[in-house]
C-alpha cells in the first residue's frame, strides 16, 4: 500500500486518481500507524513551504517521515520534493525534512516567465530507477516559482532547460526521491514514473 500524506494542502486527489487508475493500492492518510505500515510513501504538495512544514509538524509527521525515509521509498512531489531539502527561503527561512542536502529558493530568471509553468523535457544527469522506460521524449508538467538545488550534484537525477538548468528530479540514491514536476499531470510519461516508483 502506498500512503499519500494528507496534511491539508495541495491537490492530493489527483495523485490518488492516478494511483487508482494504475490499480495501485493507496490511502490518503495523516495517521502515523498507517504510514508506518505502508510499503511506500508519497508526499504531495501545492502551496507555500513554511505553512506546509507547519502543518506536518502539527500532525506530528516530521519525525515519522524522517524515520520512514530510511526504511522505505518516499516520493515528494512539487512542494513535497522541496520539503525533502534542508532549508527553504520561501517568504522566510524555514527548515525542511533535510533528507537531501540543499536549499530551496526563488527562481531567479529575469528574462523568463515565473512561475515556470507547462511541459518541459527531462534531461538525465544521473541514472534513477524512476526515470527508466520513459522513451526519448520525456516531457513532464511543471508549475512552480521556487527551485531546489542539491548541495551534491550526485543527488540530481534530471533537470530541464529554462534559463539554465532547473532541478527536476532528485534522489538520495537510496529511498528518497523528489519530482519538481507533477507526474500525476504528466500524461503517459508521468504514469510510467509512478509505475516505476511502485515497482521499486
Amino acid at each position, binding site marked *: 500500500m502506498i500512503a499519500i500524506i494528507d496534511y491539508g494542502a495541495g491537490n492530493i*486527489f*489527483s495523485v490518488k*486518481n492516478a494511483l487508482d487508475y494504475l490499480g495501485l493500492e493507496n490511502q490518503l492518510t495523516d495517521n502515523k500507524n498507517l504510514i508506518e505500515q505502508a510499503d511506500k510513501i508519497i508526499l504531495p504538495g501545492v502551496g507555500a513551504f513554511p505553512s506546509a512544514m507547519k502543518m506536518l509538524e502539527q500532525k506530528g509527521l516530521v519525525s515519522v517521515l524522517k524515520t520512514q525515509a530510511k526504511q522505505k521509498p518516499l516520493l515528494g512531489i512539487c512542494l513535497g520534493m522541496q520539503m525533502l531539502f534542508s532549508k527553504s527561503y520561501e517568504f522566510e527561512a524555514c527548515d525542511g525534512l533535510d533528507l537531501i542536502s540543499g536549499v530551496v529558493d526563488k527562481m531567479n530568471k529575469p528574462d523568463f516567465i515565473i512561475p*515556470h509553468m*507547462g*511541459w*518541459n523535457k527531462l534531461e538525465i544527469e544521473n541514472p534513477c530507477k524512476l526515470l527508466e522506460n520513459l522513451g526519448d521524449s520525456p516531457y513532464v508538467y511543471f508549475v512552480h516559482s521556487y527551485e531546489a538545488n542539491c548541495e551534491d550534484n550526485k543527488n540530481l537525477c534530471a533537470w530541464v532547460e529554462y534559463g539554465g538548468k532547473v532541478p527536476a528530479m532528485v534522489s538520495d540514491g537510496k529511498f528518497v526521491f523528489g519530482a519538481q514536476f507533477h507526474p500525476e499531470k504528466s500524461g503517459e510519461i508521468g504514469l510510467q514514473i509512478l509505475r516505476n516508483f511502485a515497482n521499486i
Partner: protein
Amino acid sequence: MLAKRIIPCLDVRDGKVVKGVNFKGIREVGDPVACAEEYNKQGADEIVFYDITASHEGRGVMLDVVRETAKRVFVPLTVGGGIKTVDDIRETLRAGADKVSVNSQAVQNPKLIKDGADIFGSQCICVGIDAKKSESGNWTVFINGGRIDMHLDLLDWVKQIEQLGAGEICLNSIDTDGVKGGFDLPMLKAVVNAVTIPVIASGGAGKLEHFAEAFQKTDCSAALAASLFHFKELTVNQVKADCRTKKIIVRS
C-alpha cells in the same frame, strides 16, 4: 525549453458537449468525459471545459464531469464558465480542475482575480477574454458570451489582469471565432506584447497551418480550438506534427 501547448476546448451544457458558431446555433455533440479521453490520447497538452449552462443544477453536473475526467485523464484540466465567487473556484479545483478560467465575472468584479490568486495561487487563475475590434480602431472587451460590449479597452484590461495576479490569459477574438480563417494575429500580438504572463490564442483556427502560424508570428504560449478538433477535421497529433516540421517545440 517549455513546449508550445495545443489545447482542445469542450463547450459543455447540462453535461453534454455542444458547439456554437459565433456564439449562435448551438449543436449537441457528445459525452465530455469520452471526448476528453480521446483528446488525451491524441496528445492534448491541456483540456478546457467551458460550461455554458445557465442553471444551478447544471453546475453540479459540470463538476461531476470534471470529477470523472480527473479519474481518467492525467493532463491539466481547466474549467471555465459560471465561476462567480471564490467558493466556486474552490469547488471547481476540489472537483479535480487544475485551473479555472474566469471571464465576464472578472470584468464585472476584478477582485475575483486577486482573491483567487491570493488564495489558490496565480497558476490556477486563467482569465478568459472575448474581444472585438471597435470602430475607433482599438479592441474592446465583451461579456456574456460576446453579447455585451463593455467599452473597456483590451490592452488596459490585460495589464490590469496581470497586476491583479492572473496566471494566464485566454484571448478569444469575436471577429475570427468560428470563421476558420486563422487566429486574430494583430490582436494576439498586441496582447502578448502588453503582458509577461502566458497568452493562449483562441478563436479562428480552421486549418493545420493556423496553429504554427500563431506560434511563428506571435509569442503566444498555447493555441486553443474547439470545433476543429471536435468535428475531427484535425487531430491534436496532426497539428503537433505540422508544428514539429516547422521547428516549433511541442510535446510528443
